[in-house]
């Protein structure tokens, strides 16, 4: 089984690094050059203002045309970009090699762009195997050695999780996502369990993003053994036309999910939940509800979700509703909302004091995790930038 190969490789790498370290040559933490390149380099080398470090660097796919598609980053200063040539979607940072950041092509793209964040340069790219495509998301293993990506086999429509090494980004293992259209994926705090948002929608590159299985769509949230792909749990929503697309995992193991509804396939006009939570140890997803007028304004679409652990509050964005909504996860209580045009990108500031949201007009806003109100003095506006659906905060922790 492939896993043995991975173990062998790991031992080899670990042995090599140990030897080099003993010789005083390099360790993983210091493998990166000390020279800086742009603001990111300053970040890693600590040569930046404390205030900037506290809020952090925000990275996002960006651009509105092939010529402009990029992986871009910004803090309080001028934004920077690396041209991608494809429209990106989600991003992931290697937790043990924090300068390694990946941007995944938006469905049904096939590329991943790997950058060296400290250098601010492209490091490498990887492509899906022939006959497969990405769904825009991926996650690194906790030890940073593996990259899990959500993909689909085009011919069969089978959802898959592909496991790549984080040196060459070659696929080492593939297992089923136990659903169609796996989208965002993450790991539970145990570092071993993958949680997958299977959107349940089948598409084909030849017909673009047209949904081919509206009548039979079947979305689910699956928990998988990250070592062998075994299905641990599967959870579904009450409404069969609701698609679980995005998620975030809390430190307590709770999973918040953001949902999009295929309204054209529904037989009634009533609103249905667009957010839900699977609490640690719970047997089912619990819907999160808001006042009806707000639910209607969301237009059946939630984009990103992010959990603030200290307050156990999750924020959700709806670009079709121009709204950010907040819920307290343990109680399910609705806590409020913030209006922001075309809002979708959502992350937390480095110091956890703010939910940070972005839109394709180039605007970035900071919303206090304490009061849920905007800190207007922190507004950032970059009219030349079109921030795309998702955003992450760069961590300098090793």
């Amino acid at each position, binding site marked *: 089984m492939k896993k043995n190969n991975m173990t062998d490789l790991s031992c080899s790498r670990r042995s090599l690094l140990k030897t080099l370290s003993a010789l005083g040559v390099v360790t993983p933490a210091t493998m990166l050059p000390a020279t800086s390149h742009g603001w990111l380099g300053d970040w890693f080398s600590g040569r930046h203002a404390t205030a900037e470090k506290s809020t952090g660097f925000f990275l996002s796919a960006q651009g509105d045309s092939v010529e402009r598609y990029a992986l871009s980053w910004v803090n309080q200063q001028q934004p920077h970009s690396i041209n991608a040539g494809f429209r990106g979607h989600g991003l992931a940072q290697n937790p043990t090699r924090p300068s390694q950041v990946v941007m995944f092509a938006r469905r049904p793209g096939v590329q991943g762009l790997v950058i060296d964040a400290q250098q601010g340069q492209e490091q490498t790219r990887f492509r899906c195997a022939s006959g497969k495509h990405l769904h825009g998301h991926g996650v690194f293993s906790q030890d940073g050695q593996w990259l899990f990506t959500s993909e689909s086999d085009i011919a069969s429509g089978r959802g898959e999780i592909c496991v790549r090494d984080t040196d060459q980004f070659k696929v080492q293992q593939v297992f089923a996502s136990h659903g169609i259209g796996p989208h965002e994926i993450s790991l539970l705090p145990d570092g071993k369990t993958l949680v997958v948002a299977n959107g349940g929608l089948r598409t084909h590159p030849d017909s673009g993003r047209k949904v081919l299985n509206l009548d039979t769509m079947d979305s689910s949230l699956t928990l998988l053994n990250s070592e062998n792909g075994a299905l641990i749990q599967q959870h579904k929503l009450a409404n069969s036309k609701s698609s679980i697309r995005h998620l975030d995992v809390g430190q307590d193991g709770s999973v918040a999910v953001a949902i999009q509804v295929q309204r054209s396939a529904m037989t009634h*006009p009533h609103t249905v939940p667009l957010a839900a939570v699977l609490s640690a140890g719970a047997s089912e997803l619990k819907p999160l509800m808001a006042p009806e007028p707000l639910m209607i304004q969301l237009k059946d679409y939630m984009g990103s979700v992010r959990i603030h652990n200290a307050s156990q509050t999750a924020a959700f964005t709806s670009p079709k509703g121009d709204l950010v909504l907040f819920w307290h996860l343990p109680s399910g209580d609705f806590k409020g909302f913030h209006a922001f045009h075309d809002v979708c990108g959502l992350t937390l500031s480095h110091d956890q004091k703010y939910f940070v949201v972005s839109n394709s007009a180039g605007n970035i806003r900071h919303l206090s995790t304490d009061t849920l109100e905007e800190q207007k003095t922190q507004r950032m506006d970059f009219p030349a930038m079109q921030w795309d659906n998702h955003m992450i905060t760069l961590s300098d922790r090793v």
Partner: protein
Amino acid sequence: MKHNSTPKHPSASKLRQGLTGVWLAGVTALASTLAGCLPSDSSSGPTNTELDVALKVALNSTVVPAYEDLAAQALSLDTLSEAFCADKTAANLTAAQTQWKTTQAAWFTALPFNFGPSEIPDSSTTPAYWYIDSYRVRGINELSTVRSDITNMLASSDAISDATFSTKTYTKVGLVALESLLFETADTGHSTVSNDIVTEYANSTDNRKCLILTGHSAELLRRANAMSTGWTTDYRGTGQSYVDLLTQGTLDTVLDDESGSDVMTKITVAAQGLYDYFGKRDVTTQVASVAGNVWDAVAASLDATEELLEGHSQDAITLFALMTKRGNSQDVETVRANIATLRTTITNQNTTEFQAAASVLDGNFKREIPDALDLSLGLNFSDGD
């Protein structure tokens, strides 16, 4: 929960936005002066200034008058309802019924511009327009709800006051409530014969049915007035009109819960929303089913939409003219043809074709019009994952 925010004064740190507003105002004034002198050079695209001018003209000459007229018609409806109650005759009932139809048409004239003051939420986050047009919300016909509520009120001995109507849920008020009160009897037969309606009012104990009628008409007037005031003089207690705040781009600076969308986005999204609604809901079979004037109502919406795009003969800059200037005259002709098609379906009162044509026009507001004006409605709004 954040809503019904108190207005905030722009902080010093919003100098950029303040300057932008001053700049826009100054350029707008200058551009208006020079507008008649601009050459029609199709090789040069429209500038942001020209678009700003065109949009401000559209707001002031099409959108604001629509809401002002809504308020005026609601006032007439309230007046005629009072007049009927003062002298319960078939003629006075007919006058009130006619005025209801005119008010309905006025609402549909404003409906393509359903943003800003018509979306102000109350303490329950319910937007203002829900209380005027409950069907617009989710395509659910609340006629039976209204009928039940009227019946219950007639049977009750509870005192009736203004608060009786201002605290009702949106499903029990608005145009549909007034439609039921004016065009049919409240008894289970729901007769639409004029004399039956007049008789029921005349026989209503303690004139109770008239109290209900005039209570609803006063409530509709209150809400229409609030919308008109918001557009023209005072939006949500800011002391500034929505037009000014919107065109200056200061909405999300002055108010905490405004999204910050620009003018053209607001206009385009509202129009998309309307024609998507016309295309997907059973508007022509469910709305005004008792009064029977829905085709006139949807025609009013289309007229307003056409006016938005074509402008008036005296306007130097119109949205269609800007699209043409950018080399997109074909798109202009496409949209004109689609408007004409939709108008034909209205003339023919063909529901199926109406819905299809409305969907096509919805598509024009999603693609041809913003593309021809080189506008982005939002990458995430338009095209998520």
